[in-house]
């Protein structure tokens, strides 16, 4: 029971932190928020195969095995998430270079637009 509670609150907190950061105005916190959200989603995906305690990976043929499918799914999701985080960092840097500010709207609040 305690394990479920720990993981559920953990995923919830990381998601909440990620969403808070994504709602910030500057691109660095937004990127951090995106990757935190991505981590929370990955753990959530992993957990949806249920919690398996004392279970071996699918490599062994004996005894209780953990559900291997979420592991495969989460691996794919991690790879895709890593690539897209890399892309969004590059894009944010370029946007900073083009507009002269790291605000996601391309201008300082209260400053001249465009």
């Amino acid at each position: 029971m305690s394990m479920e509670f720990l993981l559920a609150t953990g995923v919830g907190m990381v998601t909440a932190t990620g969403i808070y950061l994504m709602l910030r105005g500057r691109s660095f916190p937004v990127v951090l928020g995106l990757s935190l959200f991505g981590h929370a989603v990955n753990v959530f995906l992993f957990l949806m195969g249920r919690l398996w305690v004392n279970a071996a990976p699918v490599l062994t043929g004996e005894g209780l095995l953990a559900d291997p499918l979420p592991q495969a799914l989460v691996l794919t999701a991690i790879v895709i998430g890593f690539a897209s985080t890399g892309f969004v960092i590059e894009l944010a840097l370029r946007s900073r270079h083009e507009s002269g500010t790291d605000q996601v709207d391309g201008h300082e609040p209260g400053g001249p637009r465009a």
Partner: protein
Amino acid sequence: MRAALADFWLLHAPVLSVLLPLFTAVVLLLLGDRGGAGSEQGAARLRWHRRISVASGVLGLVMAVALVRQAAAGELLVYRLGEWPAPFGIALVLDRLSAAMVLLTALVALPVLAYATGGWDARGRFFHALFQFQLMGLAGAFLTGDLFNLFVFFEVLLMASYALLVHGQGRERFRMGVHYVVLNLVASGLFLIGLALVYSATGTLNMADVGRHLAHLQGDVQVFARVAALVLLVVFGLKAALLPLYFWLPGTYAAASAPVAALFAIMTKVGLYSIVRVHWQVFGDAADGAALSVADWLLPLALATSVLGVVGALAAHSMARLVGYLTVSSVGTTLASVALFTPATLSAALYYMLHSTLVIAGLFLLVELIATQRGDMHDRLQPAHAVREPVMLGAMMLFGAASVSGLPPLPGFLGKLMVLQASSGLPGQAWVWSVVLAVGFLTLIGLARAGVIVFWHVQPVAAPGARLPGRHLRMAPVWVFMALTVALAVLASPVKRYTDATAAQLARRDDYGRAVLGTEAASAPTTRRYDGQRVAPDSTPQEKQP
């Protein structure tokens, strides 16, 4: 030789549509890009890029036509990747709906490619390779029969679209690019959450198998499935630009270069397709009517999207934003018809979607043709210099406007008529009729306003500047799109028969399950939720409830 080729085609038809753009893109990457037409070497490379890309586009179109002919016979073609049996491996499934979507993609892609060779592809690197990757993602998303695979192909097409959106560079593109990428990454996260919920409820992600499980769910697992349906609706709603999630679209499409915006006309249809595939087909059979719980949300949201889209079009201050808002509005009309959840309305929605995609892609190209002749004003809706070719561009504009707003005898009219006819007698009829008719009228006003400003409210001298090279290459694709919409009107009867058959095929979920899962059982799921227990190889797996 010919028989061997035909056999090969029959065996591998679905996967070839995905592999062709992939191989083309890889060849283009290997060929390298020397920075566009600047140097002599770069110009030569660019010529080869164009040749290969257009040739691949033509081949893709031929293959898409063949796929539609094959699917029209009514049989489902299942391609099991790596010969793994269906619920365990990934299956590509070719049915009428996916074949029609692949053909629509090819029909949009080829004229857009031709347009891009008029100069846009030289303004950045690897335009054609990215374009082909996008086509690969689109074809894969339309053909896959597995929910997680749908996610992967979404990522492929999104990755390509991120890079295509900022093609041509510029401050505005990067600003909108950041918004677009961040929004879509959040949507991808939500997509994974939805898939995780589906997996936890059913123990499988194969669409046919999930559909079978959903009919037998009970208790809290059923709640999981319903939450999953709603989370996935948010994800697909963002792609399709459904009401609270469409605000990114007009600005993004207006910032994108014209050929990219025209290609993106099909991106909203990916969301629409996914709603039809997942909520109509997979969730449609759920015991507690999980699909219907989505319908309660979908119909009002779709109607409101349609209205707000056209209000945005009336208020738009540039032509590109105007067409962007028309995209939103047409998605709303289509989804409203889908949301009535009857085969007749689905068929009407599909016909309307075919038409609106083609005409909107044409309008995005036309906007740029007009903008280049208006000097510094570009496509802003303010009085400016007269365009150099008012008759030609005006005729195109008139044609497009009449078509998109649904004046007879153009296919927009037929599509709307079908939506009205199919919705008559259903509970939402009054709402659908008033919204569709009012939106058509307001669309006409919005486009008439734009036409008056651009063509009549002008200084009588043409804008300075030489004629663009490759003018005919840029005009022709717009005419091709207009001709395609006319063809859609002329061939309305066979096309409508096809969409009718598509809707009927989607409603026969048992046939789909039998074809994909390869079992004779009518509706029993072939997998069970993983519980750590093993089943002896010879015993048939039984559905176990927690």
